């Protein structure tokens, strides 16, 4: 077995000092070592998107990255979206537009949508559909997810300075 190493992960602005083997994926480290089980794991080969998190504000598959590679980077997960009791505009919109049923895919979709809307607040409908096709949902049929992200986009534009790509 390869030696474990001390790794500091900065997740949602907080440092987590963990000790992991290099083979520990970021997804597993978040769930098992940081106790942040909001990030879900489905396929473990990049197809489903359940594990999507933001690394330096870009959405990535956390099952295709090792925790050691995330050291010194800024990781954001679904746990960081709400402000205390107040839901993030995307979370509110998913609730209001019925953007989820079982909820398994939801953390991944929320982080994917957060990443794209922060980078491109004025994204076209066509491009948004294309980006949302990155993740799988077995329940909703996608239409309500698209509606929810569209609804949140206008609210986020109103209340957030846009980050550049």
């Amino acid at each position: 077995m390869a030696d474990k190493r001390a790794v500091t992960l900065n997740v949602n602005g907080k440092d987590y000092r963990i000790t992991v083997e290099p083979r520990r994926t970021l997804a597993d480290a978040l769930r098992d070592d940081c106790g942040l089980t909001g990030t879900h794991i489905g396929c473990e080969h990049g197809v489903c998107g359940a594990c999507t998190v933001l690394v330096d504000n870009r959405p990535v598959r956390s099952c295709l990255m090792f925790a050691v590679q995330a050291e010194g980077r800024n990781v954001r997960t679904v746990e960081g979206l709400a402000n205390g009791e107040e839901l993030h505009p995307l979370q509110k919109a998913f609730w209001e537009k019925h953007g989820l049923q079982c909820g398994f895919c939801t953390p991944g979709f929320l982080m994917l949508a957060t990443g794209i809307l922060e980078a491109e607040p004025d994204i076209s409908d066509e491009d948004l559909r294309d980006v949302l096709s990155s993740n799988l949902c077995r329940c909703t049929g996608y239409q309500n997810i698209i509606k929810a992200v569209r609804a949140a986009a206008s609210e986020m534009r109103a209340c957030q300075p846009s980050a550049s790509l």
Partner: protein
Amino acid sequence: MKPAPFEYVRPSSRAEAVAALATHGDDGKAIAGGQSLVAAMNFRLARPAVLVDLNGATDLDYLRPEGGKLRIGALTRHAAFHRPVVEGPLGVLLARVVRNIAHYPIRQRGTFTGSLAHADPASEWCLVSRTLGAEMVIANTGGERVCAAADFFRGTFTTAVGTEDLLAEARLPLLGPNWRSGFFEFSRRAGDFALAMSLAALEIEGGVIRAARLGVGGVADRPLRLEALEAQLVGQAPSAALFAGMGEAARDLITPTEDIHASADYRRDLIRTVVNRALTQAAS
């Protein structure tokens, strides 16, 4: 599943990366975006003993036109091409193609040269590199060599990059102002690998094709450049009949692979269609 154990090294420059690959030889493997390799490791199809992470070698992170070529360093992500990276037809071509590669989050990490080194027969960047006649810069402790695309792709997942080699850079020729491009890919779902795809670039002046590049991917063990058809296009005026004829000629030239996704006959049909559509888009 979870990957098998491995040692992890993170060189902080190209030179260190080359040295690390030499030190670890057959045991070592470079990791760039990890978007093919980690999936394979999670399935235990790949079990490298030592992973040499290129992501700390920041001198590999560049993308710039120079001497008539676009120089693409080994840390250039797919996402860099979402918007045209150079003025002129090449930037437009790359932005058109990149949307067909995987999905947005995968394009944030996957690299251009990683796609070439991986050499999936259905890789869009492999098709672009073969069709446009890219040069690959391969480095090892002995120095560096430049390999032409025609010699680079050796078969499914097989290239001129040896176990101790670093694919440091790819160079694409810039296209002059009269070039236009077309790309068409057929896949079953958004983001899937292509069952067949075609890239066409045409230099059109005074209503006549002066030069042509035509390639097909996803249908054989490596991307194919159809030089015989390129020669036939030169001197002709673009027309629907010409391009339909090229589609048929391409279909007759190629013996496509057969797999669980598509029979050879089905791929033959696709070749005819994707070639016709890529050429039509290029001329429109």
